[in-house]
C-alpha cells in the first residue's frame, strides 16, 4: 500500500518535469562556457616536450641590440641547427643573470682526481670559487681514490664540496673512459635530486675568467681548442669502421673536447649512459677509440646535436698561442708533464 504522501510527491515530480520539458524543451539550449583551471596539464606538456624555460626578465637598462650590427663578425655564433655558440661579446651577462638568478638553481660540477691528479684539486677549486657561476649554488663532486689527499678549500656560502670515493683502474686510458660510468651511476644515486644542471670538467684545469649562466642549456658541449679553425677531414675522429665511435669521412660538425660537457641532469644521464654503452661495445670487440671517451663523445654529439656550444674560450690549452678570435680565456689547462703524471 503506497501512502498518499508518496503518490502525491511522485505526481508532483512528474508534473513539474513535464512542465519544464514543454516550456524549455523546444527552445535552443545555451551552454555557459565552463572554464576548467588546469595548471597540471600545462606543466605536463612542458616536461614531456622538453621545452626551454621562458623566464620573466625584469626591467634592465642596456644598449639596444641592432639588427644590422652583429657583435662578432669574425666567428660563427650560431650552428646550422640554430644552437648558439658562446663567444665573448655575443651575450649580455647582466640580462642572463637577471633571468637565471631568481630560478634558485643548483649547478653541479664533477671532476676526477685519481692517483697523482689529486695535486690539481686545490687550484681548481680556488679558481672555481673566484670565477665559476658566482652567486649561484654550486656542488663540487670530486671523484677520487684517495680522499685524504684532497685539501680543504674555503668555499663561499651556498657552495659545498662532496668527495665521492671510486676505484682506481690500472691504466690512464681506462680511468678516463670509466668516467662516463661513474658520472652516470652518481647521477642515478645522488645528483639527480641535488642539482638542476651538471657540468663534467677535467680537474687539471684552472679558471681564469668568468664562467656564468650563459653556459646553461639542455646539452652543452665545448669546441676543442686545437681543432676550431681546421677542416673536418683533419679532426681526430675515430676512423676505423669497426669501432662504435666511427665517424666516416665527410661527416662531422665540430671536434668537441672531452674535458667539458654538461647540461640538464636528465640529459647528462642519458648521454653518459649512451657513451658508456658504446665504450663497452668497443671493449667487447677488443678495440679502443683513438681518443678514448672523447671519440665516443664526438660520435654521440654528431647524432644528438648539442643545444648550446661553448667556444674554445671555455676549454683552452695554455701551450697554444692565443689567436685574435679568442678575446678571453676562461678555463685552461695547467702545464704538466704527462709522462710523470700518468705513471
Amino acid at each position: 500500500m503506497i501512502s498518499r504522501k508518496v503518490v502525491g510527491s511522485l505526481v508532483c515530480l512528474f508534473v513539474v518535469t513535464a512542465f519544464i520539458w514543454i516550456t524549455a524543451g523546444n527552445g535552443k539550449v545555451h551552454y555557459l562556457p565552463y572554464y576548467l583551471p588546469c595548471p597540471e596539464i600545462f606543466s605536463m606538456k612542458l616536461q614531456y616536450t622538453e621545452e626551454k624555460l621562458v623566464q620573466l626578465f625584469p626591467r634592465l637598462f642596456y644598449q639596444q641590440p641592432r639588427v644590422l650590427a652583429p657583435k662578432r663578425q669574425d666567428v660563427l655564433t650560431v650552428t646550422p641547427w640554430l644552437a648558439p655558440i658562446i663567444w665573448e661579446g655575443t651575450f649580455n651577462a647582466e640580462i642572463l643573470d637577471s633571468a637565471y638568478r631568481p630560478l634558485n638553481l643548483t649547478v653541479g660540477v664533477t671532476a676526477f682526481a685519481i692517483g697523482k691528479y689529486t695535486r690539481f684539486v686545490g687550484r681548481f677549486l680556488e679558481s672555481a670559487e673566484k670565477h665559476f657561476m658566482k652567486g649561484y649554488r654550486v656542488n663540487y663532486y670530486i671523484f677520487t681514490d684517495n680522499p685524504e689527499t684532497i685539501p680543504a678549500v674555503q668555499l663561499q656560502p651556498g657552495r659545498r664540496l662532496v668527495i665521492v670515493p671510486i676505484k682506481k683502474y690500472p691504466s690512464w686510458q681506462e680511468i678516463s673512459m670509466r668516467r662516463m660510468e661513474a658520472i652516470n651511476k652518481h647521477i642515478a644515486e645522488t645528483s639527480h635530486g641535488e642539482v638542476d644542471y651538471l657540468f663534467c670538467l677535467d680537474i687539471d684545469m684552472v679558471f681564469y675568467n668568468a664562467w656564468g649562466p650563459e653556459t646553461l642549456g639542455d646539452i652543452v658541449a665545448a669546441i676543442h681548442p686545437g681543432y676550431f679553425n681546421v677542416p673536418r677531414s683533419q679532426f681526430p675522429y675515430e676512423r676505423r669502421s669497426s669501432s662504435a665511435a666511427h665517424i666516416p669521412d665527410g661527416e662531422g660538425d665540430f671536434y668537441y673536447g672531452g674535458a667539458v660537457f654538461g647540461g640538464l641532469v636528465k640529459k647528462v644521464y642519458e648521454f653518459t649512459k649512451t657513451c658508456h654503452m658504446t665504450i663497452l661495445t668497443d671493449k667487447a670487440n677488443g678495440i679502443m677509440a683513438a681518443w678514448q671517451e672523447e671519440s665516443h663523445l664526438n660520435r654521440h654529439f654528431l647524432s644528438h646535436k648539442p643545444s648550446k656550444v661553448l667556444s674554445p674560450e671555455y676549454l683552452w690549452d695554455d701551450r697554444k698561442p692565443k689567436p685574435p678570435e679568442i678575446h678571453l680565456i676562461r678555463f685552461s689547462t695547467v702545464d704538466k708533464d704527462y709522462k710523470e703524471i700518468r705513471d
Partner: protein
Amino acid sequence: ADVCTFGMFISKVDICAEEICVCLYEFYRSFKDYLHSHIPCRRRDVLVLTPWLAPIVWEGTFNRDILNAQYMQKKLVTGVVTFAVKKYVQFIEGFMSSANKYFLAGHQVIFYLFTDNPEQIPHIQMAPENHLFVIPVQNHSRWQDISMSRMDIISRYIRSQFQYEVHYLYSIDIDVQLFEHIGVEIIDALVGTISSWQYTARRESKSYETRTESQAAIPKGEGDFYYTASFYGGSVAEVYKLTRTCFKGVMKDRENGIEARWHDESHLNKYLLYHKPTRLLSPEYYWDEELSRPRIIQVKRMCSVRKNMLRTPGIPGSVMWAMLSCHVFLPLGFTII
C-alpha cells in the same frame, strides 16, 4: 696522419707521378674543405644571436635537413590559427593553398580558420598530412576590435581545445601568401618575428606605446626589437600565457578608456620585452609588400597581399608585353608616324 699536406707536396715533387697525383688530390680536397667548410654561407651582415642567446633565423644561418631530422624524432604536431572576418574571406584561398604547399611541408599541421561566414569558404585542397578546422566566430564593427579580440579567442580555444591537439601553435594574419618554404626552423618555445618596417629603427623611433596610462606602455630607454603581430607563436603553454596577458592588458585599457597605439601589436611588444622570445624570425618571415627589398633580405618567405588587388601568381610576361604593345606602343607608334 698520413694525409699529404701542402708542405709535404712541395718536397715530394721529384717522386713518381702516382704519388704526385694522390698528393694533389689530397691538397685539393683539404683546400676545398677549408673554403667551403661544411657550414653554409655564414651571415656576417646581420645580427644572428640576441644578447639573451636566442638565435635570429635568417637565410644562410641554418640547415633545414638537420633540423628536420631532429624534429622528426619527436613526432610533433603544429597548429596555425588565422582569422578571416568580413571582407578578409577573399584571402582564404590564396593563404590556404600557399600554406599547404610551403608551411612546414611534409609535417603534420592543423589549420584553425576562424570566420564569421563559414558558408563563403571555398573548397580547399589540403595536403594529406594537414587538417583544416573552420570555427565560426562573431565579428565586430571596428577592425581594431576584431584584431584585439583575436587574443581572447586564441586563449579560450587553447584552453578548451588546442592544448589537446597540438604541441606548437602559430598565429598568422590571413592576408598573406607564402612564396618560399617556412620549415621547422620556426619551432621553439616562444617565437616572435621582427617587423619589416622597423628593423633598423632606434628605440626612440620605434612604434612602442609610450603613454604610461596604457598597459602596453614601454618606458623610455627600454626595448629590444619591434615585433609584428602578424606572425608569432610557440609552444601551446607559452602562447596561452602570451594571449592571456595581452588580452588582460586590452581589457584594462578599455576600462581606463585608452586604446594602445597599434592595438594588440603594442601589447605583444610589451609582453615580449619582459618575456624574451627564445627564437626570433627575421623580416624574411613576414615581409610587407609595400617595402622595397634591401640586400639583407635574401628570401621573401611570406608576404602581405595588397588589400585592393590580389596577387595572381605569374601573369606570363609575354601576355603583359602583348597587352602593353596593343594598348600603348602601337597607338603611340601610329600617331608618331
